[in-house]
């Protein structure tokens, strides 16, 4: 309580040292990514260039989404006054802190993809909104007061910029709490969290409609925003859990135990079911009503190139977490939990793949060097940035008012 170190001998000033294998591996992965993307973008084959852009968008969005999910996790734990996660809060903080970098990279990808016509060409192209042009598209023309390059880019900058500032400041407040103590940071974090959640709640569906749904600009679904939120939040939870487990394995975070893992696992379990719920509601209602302008989305994913993966997506992201994480002993076992997190992170990569590819490369999809290389590159970049940030501060928020509750958490 008041002075935290009374009843235990944890070293709260412990810091992660980012050296050796972790640093080398993340940098090598990043280098592989850069080389892959460079080769892909410089290719003479139009399909390869487009496929590289699609993968860049997929990974940039995934990267930004996971960092934003870190910010959401932080904000939710402040507004709900959750005590249990305070001992591991430095991890989502590091993710939130690098959201500005992720956003900037995604913005570059979007700008590049838009003006090179490798992305968003369904609504951004010559003559689409000109009634005299042979490529005139009345539906696109009807949406052009929303789907136009300046408005689209302005929204991207405004939305991601605001999320970045909020997430970055939330992390900063906690770092300054270490130095100054007191309840000032806590009070400010509480307020900012509420503001962030309102902004994110009201604008993120539009951001997701813009970034992903508009790849197939005729199609629309009101659920699409919440479906994407579920996907990024499950992914964010898995990343947090995985980092916690890996840090513990390297001898850090002695104060985090299987009770905290259990709670993280329960959140992954719950949000995986929530993801399936919104996935199913979107799919079932469109299938049931069978209106052509809506079924077109699933029609494309019903083609032989995608159909097996379409169902594997649901299997990985629903059946596996439900069957494994329903068991108390499994959730509390860090090896099994880590395995589920890895499977789910691959699963949601597939989820985003199925959202992005049919509208970009269409039937020319593949799982090849472009996919692997870009995924490795972004994973390396993410790992490097997050671990680097983690190494800059103590691993425990020693002056967090709920830290004591977290240390004694038992379920």
């Amino acid at each position, binding site marked *: *309580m*008041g*002075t935290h170190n009374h009843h235990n001998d944890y070293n709260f000033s412990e810091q992660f040292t980012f050296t050796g294998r972790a640093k080398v591996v993340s940098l090598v992965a990043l280098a592989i990514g850069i080389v892959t993307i460079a080769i892909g973008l410089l290719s003479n084959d139009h399909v390869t260039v487009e496929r590289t852009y699609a993968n860049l968008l997929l990974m940039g969005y995934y990267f930004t989404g996971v960092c934003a999910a870190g910010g959401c996790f932080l904000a939710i734990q402040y507004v709900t*006054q959750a*005590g249990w996660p305070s001992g591991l809060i430095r991890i989502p903080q590091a993710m939130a802190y690098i959201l500005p970098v992720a956003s900037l990279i995604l913005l570059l990808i979007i700008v590049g993809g838009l003006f090179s016509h490798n992305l968003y060409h369904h609504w951004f192209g010559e003559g689409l909104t000109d009634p005299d042009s042979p490529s005139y598209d*009345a*539906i696109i023309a*009807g*949406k052009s007061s*929303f789907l136009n390059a300046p408005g689209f880019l302005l929204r991207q900058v405004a939305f991601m910029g605001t999320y970045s500032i909020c997430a970055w400041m939330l992390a900063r407040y906690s770092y300054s709490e270490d130095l100054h103590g*007191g*309840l000032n940071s806590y009070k400010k974090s509480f307020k900012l969290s509420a503001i962030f959640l*309102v902004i994110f*709640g*009201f604008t993120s*569906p*539009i951001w997701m*409609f813009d970034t992903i749904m508009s790849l197939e600009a*005729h199609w*629309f*679904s*009101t*659920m*699409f*925003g*919440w479906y994407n939120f579920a996907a990024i939040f499950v992914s964010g939870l898995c990343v947090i859990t995985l980092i916690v487990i890996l840090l513990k394995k390297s001898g850090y975070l002695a104060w985090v135990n299987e009770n905290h893992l259990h709670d993280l696992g*329960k959140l992954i379990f719950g949000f995986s*079911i929530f993801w399936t*719920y*919104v996935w199913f*509601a*979107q799919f079932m*209602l*469109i299938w*049931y*009503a069978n*209106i052509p*302008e809506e079924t077109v989305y699933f029609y494309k994913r019903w083609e032989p190139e995608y159909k097996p993966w379409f169902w594997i997506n649901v299997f990985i992201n629903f059946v596996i977490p439900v069957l494994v994480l329903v068991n108390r002993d499994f959730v509390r076992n860090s090896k099994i939990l880590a395995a589920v997190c890895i499977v789910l992170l691959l699963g949601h990569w597939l989820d985003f793949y199925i959202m992005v590819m049919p509208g970009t490369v269409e039937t020319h999809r593949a799982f090849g060097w472009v996919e692997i290389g870009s995924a490795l590159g972004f994973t390396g970049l993410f790992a490097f940035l997050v671990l680097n940030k983690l190494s800059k501060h103590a691993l425990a928020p020693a002056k967090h*008012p*709920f830290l*004591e*509750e977290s*240390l*004694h*958490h*038992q*379920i």
Partner: protein
Amino acid sequence: MSSHNESIIREPLVTGKDITYAKVTDDILLPVENKPNKAWWIGFTMAALGALLWVFSVGYTFWTGIGAWGLNKTVGWAWDITDFVWWVGIGHAGTLISAVLLIFRQNWRNSINRSAEAMTIFAVICAATYVVAHMGRPWLAYWIFPLPNQFGSLWVNFNSPLVWDAFAISTYFTVSLVFWYCGLLPDIASVRDRAAGLKRRIYSILSFGWNGSVKTWQRFEIVSLILAGISTPLVLSVHTIVSMDFATSVIPGWHTTIFPPYFVAGAIFSGFAMVQTLLLVMRKVLNFENYITMFHIESMNKIILATGSIVGIAYLTELFIAWYSGSEYEMYAFSNRIAGPYWWAYWTMMTCNVISPQLFWFKRIRTSIPISWVLSIVVNIGMWFERFVIIVTSLHRDYLPSSWAMFYPSWVDVGVFVGSVGLFFTLFLLFLRFLPGIAIAEVKLLLKSASLQQKSKLIKEGHLDSEQVEFFRNTLTKYDSVTDEEIKELETK
């Protein structure tokens, strides 16, 4: 649950001085063990008169047929389904509080779960009456279940969301009832142990032989968690399926993919508002201020704010996508809602559901009992209008302009609705009279960790951070059950 390690900055869940286990039992059983007061009788008489109106209106419907309602061939579904969805929605908070908040270890639920669950059950009963009243031939109500054809009916159409609804609601009702009743067992046993004569016999049977042994308590804990696990998906499933009654159709304004989670959020929103409406009166009339504290009121207001905003996001998303879709029918359905002949219903909905809860951003408003009470009713007015807007404005101007029509409720429509409110309050008032309105055993769990008494003791022992103690003292100023003197006593030297 962090028991004695709870941070001092957490607000107390039980206030009052000299609260002992015995005093908790005495306080909560007061209305059960004594003759009801005048306020109860006045309330009960009014509610019972409403229930009589319900019996009369529903009886009239059965006698003359559904033609007694204001329906016409364009608007073939109006107040009946509006009221049904309204009641089912209200019946969501109980299970959310008892199950979801238990899973999230929110121990402030301990003081409000009992009456919220009771409220849920009565609301679902009211909703179920509409299902039967809808049928025109209620003696064939069993046709909604898949009985073999030998019974003289046709095997049900499993593709119909109405059939899913019958399953969802009956499952929900059963599980909620079992959950509520299991939670009641130790408290019924407390009533039994203090009663005599016939009353003792009756409560003895109702308590299922509860003996308070360690073994019994262990089973009680296990069964609570299991039932919470079973109920949690039900919180989602019921209103999801209610939403599918509409969303599987091809009617603009009904068919949209966001409906399931949006309906669930709306249901929790209206359910919490109804809990607030009931509890604010109950805590005052039955002197429960020490158990249902300002923290509970404020927390519920925050949930109303959060869910109201989620509903707001859904409304705006629907509006946006109606335009974005480029479908002229979708666009017309929404422009007709906003500016058509039912514009007043749409704007009542928007004002009550989205704008009015935003007032809860102000601490002074969410800690004001009269304003919270008024707003809780405003929310449920808004939620009634939401269903009315979705249902009637989508139907009254269909694809064929020559059949466009308006809907005017008949006196029977009004009678059934007002009557169902009477029925609901009759059941709730009877519940308060015969069963403990707060979970005695669960509130007792809080005394050693989350009570003001316990926190004062810790502060007086004096090992706490003075800034945190100051923070705690400041949170107490909003409590109407904590006096300035009590706050002063906690001053750190």
